[in-house]
């Protein structure tokens, strides 16, 4: 094949950086090894960049260094300044950049195929056309999809699903059109073909994400993570670059697995999440019936403080509401005071709590909660029977027993915390009005042992800390 010959040492170097990327992910199997893993990743990237620069004749080094410095500077400042609660939208924004970079590289390869060694006499190889076309299409979908995800997560656009009539037909038609155009690209390498592929892919990325919202966002973010990987892999095929292919495969499968874990934690099929529409305003028929008023008990910060001081064990269940009100630091303070009083304090985290996988863990880590006090659903769920206080803060659906008992409930089958087994349940919530993301009423509100703590999460926890001091 007439590809630009890459020296074998360079191919070896790309392989080494691919292996270092694998080690970077491997390191994340425990917090103790994770920092070393991150360093492996950085070394891998340095090797990949250096190898590319050394093996190619460089026409304009100052421009390249300038570009690296501008991008690097921006990235570094953002990484330093970003609030931990804003992590989901940051990740979405970063995905969009990978997508756009893939589109730009694809276009650059199309315009100057000789530099990439994928053409002979002005004709691009058919195989490269397909790889390039797919790379551009996936990159463009990743870009526009991530922009929508970013706007939704950052609250700059309504998180509610936007439903277009006949959207499944439109989406399917667009995807088929893109694939046909990629096929046609092998015989006709005109500018309009690749232009249309890019345009349609940008549109489909947008259309795919607007009907998905709210608590389905963790799936969206993971899915876009996966796409950004496949885009890199497609480009790796075009450029015959081992580092890119290995990385693309790693990132692609990583995002896919995370999406799977998120879907499973909600007991929802991947396709039904992708189809979107969950958490939309209830249809007129279903929501029309007047709700029965059931009695519930309201507690004060003092009551809560008193009960928790007397308790032997407290399990705290944080949810998205904790992130919204930035209550994690106050919560850790509360935990510290309770521990001084001899109370055992544990944190229980549902896989879909928050807006991205592991969101709650990062926030608790930020607030200096030791990670060995934080438990996953399966590991702690059996302990609610012996627990004195279940302290629910900003979570709702993940503690709703309807998921276990009510077959007609939209969240039926989703694994939930057995909080109803705890002696006392404290439910921090802004008001009785909102009923979680799924729009399902929660029986936990009305149980005898439940105390509703109605206030902003952060304020309530701070008041409890004050009350504990007395």
């Amino acid at each position, binding site marked *: 094949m007439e590809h630009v010959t890459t020296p074998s040492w360079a191919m070896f170097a790309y392989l080494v950086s691919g292996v270092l990327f694998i080690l970077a992910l491997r390191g994340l199997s425990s917090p103790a090894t994770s920092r070393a893993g991150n360093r492996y990743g950085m070394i891998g990237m340095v090797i990949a960049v250096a190898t590319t620069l050394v093996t190619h004749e460089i026409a304009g080094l100052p421009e390249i260094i300038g570009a690296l410095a501008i991008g690097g500077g921006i990235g570094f400042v953002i990484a330093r300044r970003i609030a931990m609660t804003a992590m989901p939208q*940051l990740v979405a924004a970063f995905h969009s950049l990978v997508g756009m*970079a893939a589109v730009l590289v694809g276009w650059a*390869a199309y315009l100057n195929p000789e530099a990439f060694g994928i053409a002979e006499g002005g004709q691009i190889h058919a195989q490269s056309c397909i790889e390039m076309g797919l790379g551009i299409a996936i990159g463009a979908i990743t870009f526009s999809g991530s922009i929508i995800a970013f706007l939704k997560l950052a609250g700059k656009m309504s998180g509610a699903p936007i439903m277009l009539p006949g959207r499944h037909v439109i989406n399917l038609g667009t995807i088929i059109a893109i694939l046909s155009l990629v096929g046609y690209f092998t015989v006709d390498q005109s500018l309009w073909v690749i232009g249309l592929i890019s345009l349609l892919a940008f549109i489909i990325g947008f259309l795919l994400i607007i009907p998905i919202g709210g608590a389905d966002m963790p799936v969206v973010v993971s899915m876009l993570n996966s796409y950004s990987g496949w885009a890199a892999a497609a480009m790796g095929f075009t450029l015959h*670059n081992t580092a890119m292919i290995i990385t*693309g495969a790693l990132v692609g499968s990583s995002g896919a697995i995370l999406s799977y874990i998120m879907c499973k934690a909600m007991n929802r099929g991947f396709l039904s999440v992708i189809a979107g529409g969950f958490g939309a305003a209830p249809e007129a028929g279903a929501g029309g019936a007047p709700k029965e008023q059931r009695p519930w008990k309201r507690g004060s910060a003092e009551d809560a403080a008193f009960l928790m001081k007397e308790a032997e064990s407290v399990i705290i269940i944080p949810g998205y509401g904790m992130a919204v009100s930035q209550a994690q630091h106050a919560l850790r303070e509360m935990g510290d005071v309770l521990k001084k009083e001899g109370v055992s304090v544990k944190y229980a985290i549902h896989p879909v709590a928050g807006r991205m996988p592991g969101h709650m863990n990062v926030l608790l880590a930020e607030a200096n909660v030791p990670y060995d006090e934080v438990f996953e659903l399966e590991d702690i769920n059996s302990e609610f029977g012996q627990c004195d206080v279940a302290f629910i803060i900003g979570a709702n659906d993940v503690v709703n027993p309807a998921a276990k008992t009510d077959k007609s409930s939209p969240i039926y089958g989703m694994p939930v915390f057995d909080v109803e087994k705890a002696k006392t349940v404290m439910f921090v919530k802004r008001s009785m009005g909102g009923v979680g993301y799924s729009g399902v009423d929660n029986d936990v509100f009305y149980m005898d042992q439940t105390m509703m703590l109605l206030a902003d999460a952060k304020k309530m926890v701070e008041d409890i800390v004050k009350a504990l001091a007395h």
Partner: protein
Amino acid sequence: MDFISILSIFVLACFVGYYVVWSVTPALHTPLMAVTNAISSVIVVGALIAAAASGLGAAGGVSKWLGLGAVVLASVNIFGGFAVTARMLAMYKKKEKK
């Protein structure tokens, strides 16, 4: 390299990815996303090739600028991704022994 060896690398890497990612502890799923983000910016390799090419004609010139644009975007991600991952990972601490 011919297509089939590239495909083999790809398929095997998918399997490696599958097993490695399942071994990641759920507590670190957010850093996992941040770091996969950073490493997927290895696409910068393609961007550098385009940016480094000696521009032949108008198309080559445009290609070079597209490449430079991609270098900027990818490097935002590389530096930002690794830095934010490092920042997150530094926060995960064990219980202090007293």
